[in-house]
């Protein structure tokens, strides 16, 4: 891919790469804006920019990640995701085959999630101005009337559910990026969760909050929830699913899996009465087979997340600072 011809190159990419994969009745209009019918309820609108490195990793690539991430951001707000935009910043020299692979996986991810990529944009920049490819996706969805899912809704007594194993995505990215040989079986969990969430909301309509524990992992997400609702959260260490290979790699690297990013997991906070139904709905879904009740919301220690260890002591789970810092003196 070469930079310079500007508009002409973008047009060419649109015709040769984007439209064949992403084409759909809305996008095919190729107007300056996408137009579609509104649905009842409130509109949910989100945006995220994906700059992950490496762009290809076990279990996915930057393309499906950009679709799944935005779909999940809508779904965890209780919305039914409908339309996405896709903005590409491409570094000159990016192999066309790589771009094509990425766009194809975006199309596949959108199809699986049942969303339409409704508009898009492409810019090609000089070498060094970005790292191969950056993708921005924005998304629009509709929240059915009467649904109220919010990070301020947590109540003492609620159950905390997790849809599956943690740390897979972050460990896959880290070990691939650093070329560590001991990670061979770790795959990203990148997946769109709107289907599973829709099933769950049928049987557990009173879900208080949902969040996808992406950057900062379960530790960051639960701390944010505890803070927003001024409640405490108590986790049960033994109940938190972690794949053996992820646990092993994390232990070697001195990383707590609780702080590692996920891209296909969701935390559900639900009144205790609906916990079992919600769990069953998740487990019935392909993305929730290993779902578990991992903790509860408590009145004690508002704003703080505490984890009960198998020995019965309680360890404070802090907001991760980014880098692991030794603290043992």
């Amino acid at each position, binding site marked *: 891919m070469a930079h310079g011809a500007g508009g002409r190159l973008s047009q060419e990419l649109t015709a040769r790469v984007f439209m064949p994969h992403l084409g759909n009745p809305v996008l095919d209009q190729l107007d300056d804006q996408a137009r579609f019918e509104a649905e009842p309820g409130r509109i949910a609108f989100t945006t995220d920019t994906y700059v992950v490195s490496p762009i290809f990793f076990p279990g996915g690539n930057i393309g499906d990640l950009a679709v799944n991430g935005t779909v999940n951001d809508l779904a965890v707000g209780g919305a039914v995701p409908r339309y996405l935009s896709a903005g590409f910043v491409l570094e000159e020299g990016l192999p066309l085959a790589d771009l094509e692979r990425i766009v194809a996986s975006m199309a596949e991810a959108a199809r699986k999630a049942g969303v339409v990529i409704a508009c898009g944009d492409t810019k090609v920049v000089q070498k060094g101005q970005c790292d191969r490819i950056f993708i921005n996706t924005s998304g629009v969805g509709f929240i059915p009337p009467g649904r109220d899912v919010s990070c301020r809704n947590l109540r003492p007594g609620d159950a905390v559910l997790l849809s599956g194993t943690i740390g897979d995505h972050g460990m896959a990215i*880290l070990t691939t990026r*650093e*070329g*560590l*040989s*001991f990670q061979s079986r770790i795959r990203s969990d990148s997946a769109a969760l709107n289907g599973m969430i829709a099933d769950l909301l049928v049987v557990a309509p009173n879900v208080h909050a949902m969040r996808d524990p992406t950057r900062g992992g379960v530790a960051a997400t639960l701390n944010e929830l505890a803070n927003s609702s001024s409640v405490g959260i108590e986790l049960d260490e033994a109940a938190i699913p972690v794949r053996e290979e992820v646990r092993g790699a994390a*232990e*070697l*690297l*001195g*990383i707590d899996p609780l702080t590692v990013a996920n891209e296909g997991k969701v935390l559900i906070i639900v009144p205790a009465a609906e916990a079992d139904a919600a769990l069953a709905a998740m487990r019935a879904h392909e993305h929730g087979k290993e779902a578990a009740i991992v903790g509860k919301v408590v009145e004690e*220690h508002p704003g*703080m997340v*505490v984890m009960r*260890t198998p*020995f*019965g*002591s*309680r*360890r*404070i789970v*802090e907001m991760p*600072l980014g880098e*692991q*810092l*030794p*603290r*043992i*003196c």
Partner: protein
Amino acid sequence: MADLEARGALSARPKSERRRFAVGGIVQGVGFRPFAWRLAGRFELTGFVRNTGSGVVIEVEGEPDNLDRFEAALRDEAPPLARIASLVRQEIALVEGEPGFVILESSSGESMQTLISPDIAVCAACLRDIADSANRRYRYAFTNCTDCGPRYTIVERIPYDRPFTTMKGFSLCPECQREYGDPADRRFHAQPNACPVCGPKLELRDVSGLRLEFDDEILAAGELLSGGKILAIKGVGGFHLAVDASNEEAVQRLRSRKGREEKPFAVMVRDLAAARELCEIGADEEVALASPQAPIVLLRKRADLRLAASIAPGNDRLGVMLPYSPLHFLLLREGPEALVMTSANFSEEPLVADNAEALERLAGIADAFLMHDRPIARRCDDSVVVQLAGAVRMIRRSRGYAPAPIRLLESGPPVLGTGGELKNALCLAKGGEAFMSQHIGDMKNYEAYRHFDDVAAHMQRIFRTEAELLVHDLHPAYMTTRWALEQGKPTLGVQHHHAHLASCLAEHRHSGPAIGLMLDGVGYGTDDTAWGGEVLIGDAAGAVRFASLEPMPLPGGDAAVRQVWRTALGWLHRSGVSPEGLECFRQPQAAQVLEMLDKGVGTAESSGCGRLFDAVASVSGLRHEAHYEGQAAIELMQAAGGRIADAGYSFGFERQHGRWLMLLSPMLREIAAAVRAGAGATEVAQRFHRTLVGMLAEAAHMASHETGLKTIALSGGVFQNQLLTEALAHNLESNGYKVLMHEQLPTNDGGISLGQAVIGREFLRGRYKGIMNCEL
């Protein structure tokens, strides 16, 4: 003649004088007023004694000689729990027609400045009471008097009066009331005074919490222990888990139930004679053992130790304490001669103190519970001391010592030092004194965090002050940092090793700058890396980082603290040492760790000295996994067999980033070569310690040469290493340096909050400069 003589005697009789003594310190709630009353009687003085806002005021009138003797006795014979910090004398006018000497109630409205006494071991007189079948307190487990018993752990509020203690639920029977009101009685105003009729009662419960009925709970408990059962026993500051120390199977059962692999247990033995049968005891150690503080003393095991082998495996020391409550005393007289007595908790969390909590949390560990109905207001672990470098020094300062103040060189505004992350103890500086809390533990543990919060509030309440500044460690992930920042008060973050230095200087009331050798595991540095082997020059206001150990990679960060072979690999990798002939390279996962090192992933840089011991222990093949903190370092020291080699390995200094780096690679290469050539751990340990002494002494000389300073402060957990500390102190002292080492406070992180507090005062005075770059 007779007449004349009588007249002569009369005329020789000196005129009466009246003196007023203002006594400050721990003089309330410790039997000071009846003590003064008795002295006044002995020296035929009239007057009064009264508690005041700042201590005790005594006015006495009588012959000048007797007044002098009274004053001398006031100092020399003060009750065991009293600590006279100041005594001001004043001549005042005589008072006409005073009938005698009286104890006055403290005038209301006056603000009470009560220094709460630490908890003190049962005294000899009370022991006699409980051993005497004719005494009404015969075998009574809660016997105490003004000279002994619980204090700090039962105080809920001040002033120190029974209604404000956990004794409030027990109303005195007429006999106890009489003692309480009689100045001639040993129990005059003894707030926890109790007897079998009116005081706390023992109860024995099974695992399900069911009360077991026995005529004599202590006898029954003793039998359970003799039968190998694990008992949870409620003591002064919390519960212990106890087993017969001679029953190997029982000790191992306790280990497996508690999930504690090899960390040594402490034992409580009947008396000094029994302690002597287990360990070698020097004169100072004996004094410490039998002191009213009754700490655990780390003693040298006898070769023929007749106790369960798994009490302190691989350790040549044994933690020993003597019974410090009447309950312990009775139990050890009738049960096994030596009991393992370990804090009832899970590693590094505060010990369990509440009955219901004990029944719930210890149900999986204890076979039965020996408890009582006197609540514990503030939990407090046993203290630990060790004889090292010519003094008995603190390892953990808690029961018996907290909250007795440390006297400071200067007075200043109230400041709270929040301490470190592990072995936490906080410090409240008020006026000319610093009050160190009991040991609080690992702040990442939620119970410890709550305990910290509680103690911080409690101490400010009982010492009637509110800190103007909260000082915390620079480490952003320390829970003490989080706590400080959440209080909505002014805060200051100070560098970890600066706090170590300031703490050592403050403890010694040293003014002016000194050279500090600060050696510990890791502490957060001003450059966001982990420091831990530092030569700082300065004082509480600020310090220069003159030199540090060469930073080395810690693969997996804190994971390397347990898997010490990782540290070894990190340091050997950095030193360019190849794997041949070294066991540490043959650990499972060594290949993966080497890959991390090659790629620089998951490794934190650290100049920690504690980690150096870990690395050398593993390179020498001595130990690759530590089951408790410091295990590898302890065993490396022991491997030297108390000897230090004449010649060490190579070391060097290199100027980098504005400081001297103490190079470790040359030594690591030589150790690796020596191990390959067949050198044993003993040889390596002896030469390694020599190298460290040589290198640190050299760094101190360099610092002294630059600055002219001749005082060297040692602080940091590494100085718990007897071999290194004694050799280094000897080296420095024989070169004309004055060496300051912690004595009243632990040299580990349990002592840094004092440093933080005095640094905070410098900050409030506008003198704080922090850590400065070294420009020579």
